């Protein structure tokens, strides 16, 4: 099925025809009897995986099975920050590959994902924190990633409204990644879905995977779903917060806990926050959407949850941090808050790997940072599914790294997922 090409000319043509000629962006498929590759989960990662399987790895028989509607999970709940300011040698190249893919994504998908490289600024509030940020910036630059250390005067120029002289948390400067920024999460989902469907991928919604069918050797041969059994040679899981639940259907226990993360948006305001700003004395980050809402969030609630909503202590905590960083925010009214379920790993880094079950592949453990990873995660998972070997930039993101002791520990928090 070929899609309509979107362009300024198409828009003008449709405007003259009173916008009656638009066709659906993708085909809502019904399940076939079998596929070569089934991807479970119609979030950003599952859809990106399917797209790159078809586009880059020439796969002709691919389906994405989504239990609800595409983008109804974390893909449609995140705060849309994209960046590659990581510290460990395993993560920097992976997230940088993703940022490079973001830079060309809209042309590649022919879809406006509103990718906006408005900069990500991480503030620091002590000499020790400056050292840590300098180290991170140096690690990034050694990998060819852009990073700039700003002093207070330079931060003042960017964001004069911050509380620089705060008695407890004075601002000493910041680490800026100019190429970081935001993208529109829903548009990323729709763009990947449309481009994948145009290459022949079946996107099947309202289709929950409820079990795996295995032969005498243990090899996966099919999945049981709410819409019947569907055969497959290979099955890839990309179900984010539901990773442990789906893995349990294949008797697997994962190094993952599911936690709730909340986010908030204010009423629409005139442009005020340039780019993304993070508070270094706690865990708080803020940006402004193109509609004008301040989009912000902070820590996990801290206890395991599948409820997709959080509790009030974190609301209080996030608002206190907002006030400590930029007191003027106290005048804005909160419009909405919501929660999503994070697949938190034991070292804070993701997993893209085979599983001990033949034919079953795993993509997950994205913690609260998987939106930015969407394109590279899809590409690397597609590589693994199509070729049965890891993509070089994701070769360290193994499932057995915990037992082997090769953790990718960005923060040094230990096996405490609620502290990552």
């Amino acid at each position, binding site marked *: 099925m070929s899609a309509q090409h979107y362009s300024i000319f198409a828009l003008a043509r449709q405007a003259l025809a009173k916008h009656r000629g638009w066709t659906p962006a993708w085909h809502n498929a019904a399940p076939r009897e079998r596929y070569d590759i089934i991807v479970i989960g119609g979030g950003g990662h599952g859809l990106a995986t399917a797209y790159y399987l078809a586009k880059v790895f020439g796969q002709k028989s691919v389906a994405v099975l989504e239990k609800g509607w595409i983008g109804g999970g974390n893909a449609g709940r995140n705060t849309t920050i994209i960046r590659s300011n990581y510290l460990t040698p395993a993560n920097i190249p992976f997230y940088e590959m993703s940022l490079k893919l973001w830079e060309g994504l809209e042309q590649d998908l022919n879809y406006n994902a509103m990718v906006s490289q408005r900069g990500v600024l991480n503030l620091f509030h002590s000499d020790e924190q400056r050292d840590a940020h300098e180290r991170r910036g140096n690690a990034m630059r050694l990998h060819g990633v852009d990073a700039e250390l700003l002093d207070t005067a330079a931060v003042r120029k960017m964001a004069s409204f911050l509380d620089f002289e705060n008695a407890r948390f004075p601002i000493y400067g910041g680490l800026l990644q100019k190429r970081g920024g935001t993208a529109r999460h829903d548009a990323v989902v729709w763009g990947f879905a449309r481009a994948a469907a145009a290459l022949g991928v079946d996107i099947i919604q309202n289709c929950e995977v409820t079990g795996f069918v295995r032969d005498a050797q243990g090899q996966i041969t099919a999945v049981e779903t709410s819409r019947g059994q569907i055969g497959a040679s290979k099955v890839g899981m990309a179900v984010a917060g539901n990773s*442990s*639940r789906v893995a349990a259907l294949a008797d697997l226990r*994962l190094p*993952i806990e*599911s936690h709730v993360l909340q986010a908030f948006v204010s009423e629409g305001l005139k442009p005020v926050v340039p780019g993304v700003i993070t508070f270094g004395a706690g865990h708080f980050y803020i940006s402004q959407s193109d509609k004008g809402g301040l989009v912000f969030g902070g820590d996990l609630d801290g*206890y*395991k949850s*599948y409820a997709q909503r959080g509790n009030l*202590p974190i609301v209080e905590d996030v608002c206190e941090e907002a006030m400590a960083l930029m007191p003027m925010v106290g005048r804005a009214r909160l419009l909405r808050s919501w929660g999503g379920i994070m697949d938190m790993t034991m070292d804070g880094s993701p997993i893209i790997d085979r599983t001990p079950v033949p034919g079953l592949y795993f993509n997950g453990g994205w913690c609260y940072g998987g939106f930015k990873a969407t394109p590279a995660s899809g590409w690397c998972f597609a590589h693994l599914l199509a070729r049965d070997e890891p993509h070089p930039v994701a070769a360290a993101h193994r499932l057995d790294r915990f037992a082997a002791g090769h953790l990718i520990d960005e923060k040094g928090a230990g096996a405490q997922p609620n502290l990552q």
Partner: protein
Amino acid sequence: MMINCPHCGNRDSGEFHVRGEAAQRRPDYSEGQDAFAEYVYGRTNIAGIQHEHWYHVAGCRNWLTVERDTRTHAIISVAFAREARP
């Protein structure tokens, strides 16, 4: 979310520190490295009712075993951890 501490009564969850799945058992040394890796890093992580440990850090400082539904946050039972071992 409120937790009904058997010592202090019904208190805000903010007074407590959560430790995780109560069913995890430290293996014996003879069980080998895989058993320890599973103990430190493996989680059952069920969507449903589970037993977990909470510490009443801003209260009586007792360790509690809380039975809680991870799908709804509903708390089913609370007991001293020394008395309730799932």
